[in-house]
C-alpha cells in the first residue's frame, strides 16, 4: 500500500467529516431561520451576527445538560441506541462524490473529489441507511416508555415500507447507468453539455418516487409519525436527554444530508452541469447548489404540509408508491430496450 494513497485518504476523510458536521450544524440553524421567515417571524438571531453562532451555543448546552438513564431502562441497549443510529448516518458520506477529477496545485496527478468509490456504491449506501432502523427500534424498546415503544414500532414499519419504494425507484437509474458505482452513475449524466440528467432523460417518475420515499425514510414532515409530538410526545427519543438526544438529532440531519446527496447523484446529475467539462472547479458548486435545493425542500415541506395519519401513511407507501415503482421499472426497461 503506497503511503501517498493513505495520506490522501486521511486528508479527504478529515475534509469530508468537517464538511458533514458543519453542514449538519448549520442545517439546524438554516431550518429554524427558514421556518421563522415562513411564519413571519425572525427565528434565532441573538447569538452572533444573524444567529450564526447558535449551533455552537446549542452544542455547549447539550454537553452540560444532565444525562438521565431511567431506572427501568435496559441500560446497555439504552446507551448503545444513539451510537447505533449515529454511526451509519455519518458513514454514508464516505461514498458520495462531490466533484470530478481535477488538478490541484503542487500535486502532479489529478485528484478525484470523493473519498472512495466502490463498485457496489448504491448497495453500500442502502445497507448503511438501513442500519439506522436498529438504533431507533432499540431506543424505543430500551427506554421502557409507552411513547418510545410506539414511536419505535411505527418508525421501523414506516422505514421498511418506504425503503422498498426507494430501492425500486433506483432500479430505473441502474438500467441506464449500468453500474452501482456512484462515480459512474454521475459520469453517465454528462451529455447534452452537462444537462443529460436522469430526471430529464426518462426517469422523472423514478425521481418523484425517490423524492417522496426519501422524505419518509428520514422521518421528516409530513411523514414524521414516529415523533408526532401531539400524540407520542417525542416518539422513540422521549426518554433521552443531553448528548444522547443530540446524537439522534445529528443522525437525523446527517441522514437528510445523505439523502439529498443521493438524490443529487442519482437523478440531478451530481456535479454535472453546463461548463463543467471545461472548468472542473464548477462541479462542487453545482453539487452543493443541488443539495441545498433538496435541503430547502425538506424545510419547505415541513412548513407547508400537515402530518399524515398512520393508516394513510402505510396505504400511500404500500398501495400507491410500491405499484408505481414496479410500473416505473417496467417502463424504464422497455424504454431502455428501444432507445439504448
Amino acid at each position, binding site marked *: 500500500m503506497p503511503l501517498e494513497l493513505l495520506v490522501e485518504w486521511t486528508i479527504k476523510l478529515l475534509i469530508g467529516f468537517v464538511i458533514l458536521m458543519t453542514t449538519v450544524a448549520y442545517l439546524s440553524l438554516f431550518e429554524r431561520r427558514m421556518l421563522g421567515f415562513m411564519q413571519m417571524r425572525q427565528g434565532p438571531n441573538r447569538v452572533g451576527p444573524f444567529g450564526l453562532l447558535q449551533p455552537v451555543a446549542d452544542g455547549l448546552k447539550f454537553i452540560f445538560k444532565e444525562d438521565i438513564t431511567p431506572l427501568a431502562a435496559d441500560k446497555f441497549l439504552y446507551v448503545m441506541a444513539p451510537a447505533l443510529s449515529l454511526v451509519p448516518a*455519518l458513514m454514508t458520506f464516505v461514498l458520495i462524490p462531490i466533484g470530478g477529477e481535477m488538478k490541484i496545485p503542487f500535486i502532479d496527478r489529478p485528484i478525484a473529489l470523493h473519498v472512495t468509490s466502490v463498485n457496489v456504491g448504491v448497495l453500500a449506501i442502502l445497507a448503511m441507511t438501513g442500519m439506522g432502523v436498529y438504533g431507533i427500534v432499540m431506543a424505543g424498546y430500551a427506554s421502557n416508555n409507552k411513547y418510545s*415503544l410506539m414511536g419505535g414500532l411505527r418508525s421501523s414499519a414506516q422505514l*421498511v415500507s418506504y425503503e422498498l419504494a426507494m430501492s425500486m425507484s433506483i432500479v430505473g437509474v441502474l438500467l441506464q447507468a449500468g453500474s452501482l458505482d456512484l462515480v459512474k452513475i454521475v459520469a453517465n449524466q454528462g451529455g447534452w453539455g452537462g444537462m443529460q440528467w436522469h430526471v430529464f432523460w426518462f426517469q422523472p417518475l423514478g425521481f418523484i418516487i425517490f423524492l417522496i420515499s426519501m422524505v419518509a425514510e428520514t422521518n421528516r414532515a409530513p411523514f414524521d409519525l414516529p415523533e408526532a409530538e401531539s400524540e407520542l410526545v417525542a416518539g422513540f427519543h422521549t426518554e433521552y436527554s443531553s448528548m444522547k438526544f443530540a446524537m439522534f438529532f445529528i443522525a437525523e440531519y446527517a441522514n437528510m444530508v445523505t439523502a439529498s446527496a443521493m438524490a443529487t447523484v442519482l437523478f440531478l446529475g451530481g456535479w454535472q452541469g453546463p461548463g463543467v467539462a471545461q472548468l472542473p472547479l464548477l462541479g462542487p458548486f453545482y453539487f452543493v447548489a443541488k443539495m441545498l435545493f433538496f435541503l430547502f425542500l425538506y424545510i419547505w415541506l415541513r412548513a407547508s404540509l400537515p402530518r399524515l395519519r398512520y393508516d394513510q401513511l402505510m396505504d400511500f407507501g404500500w398501495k400507491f408508491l410500491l405499484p408505481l415503482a414496479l410500473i416505473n421499472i417496467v417502463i424504464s426497461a422497455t424504454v431502455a430496450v428501444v432507445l439504448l
Partner: protein
Amino acid sequence: MLAEYLPTLLFLIVATGIGIALILIGNFLGPKRPSPEKLSPYECGFNAFEDARMQFDVRYYLIAILFIVFDLEIAFVYPWALVFRELGVFGLIEMGVFLALLFIGFIYVWKKGALEWE
C-alpha cells in the same frame, strides 16, 4: 479492488470513536441530580401504571414479513438491471414474468387485507 474499501473501514472506526466520545462527554460533564420522579418513565405527569413492554399490533410483524419478500425481490432485480444491456429483449421478458408473478402475489396480499390499517 479490495483496497478501495479501506477508507470505509477507517471511517467506521472514526465514526464509532465519535459515537463513544459523545456518550462519554455527555455523561461526565453533565450534572448528576437523580430523583425518583426524574428516573421514572415519562407519562405526561401520571405515575406509570404498567410495564411499557406491552403487547402490540400483529400487523407490525406482517409488514416485516412482507418487507422481507419484497426486499429479496429487489436483491434479484439489482443485478439484472446491471447486466440488462447484454441481455436485451430476453432479459426484459424474463424479468417481466418474474415481476408479474410477484405482482399477482402482491394483489393477493392486498385482497386478503394484509395492508389494511383501520
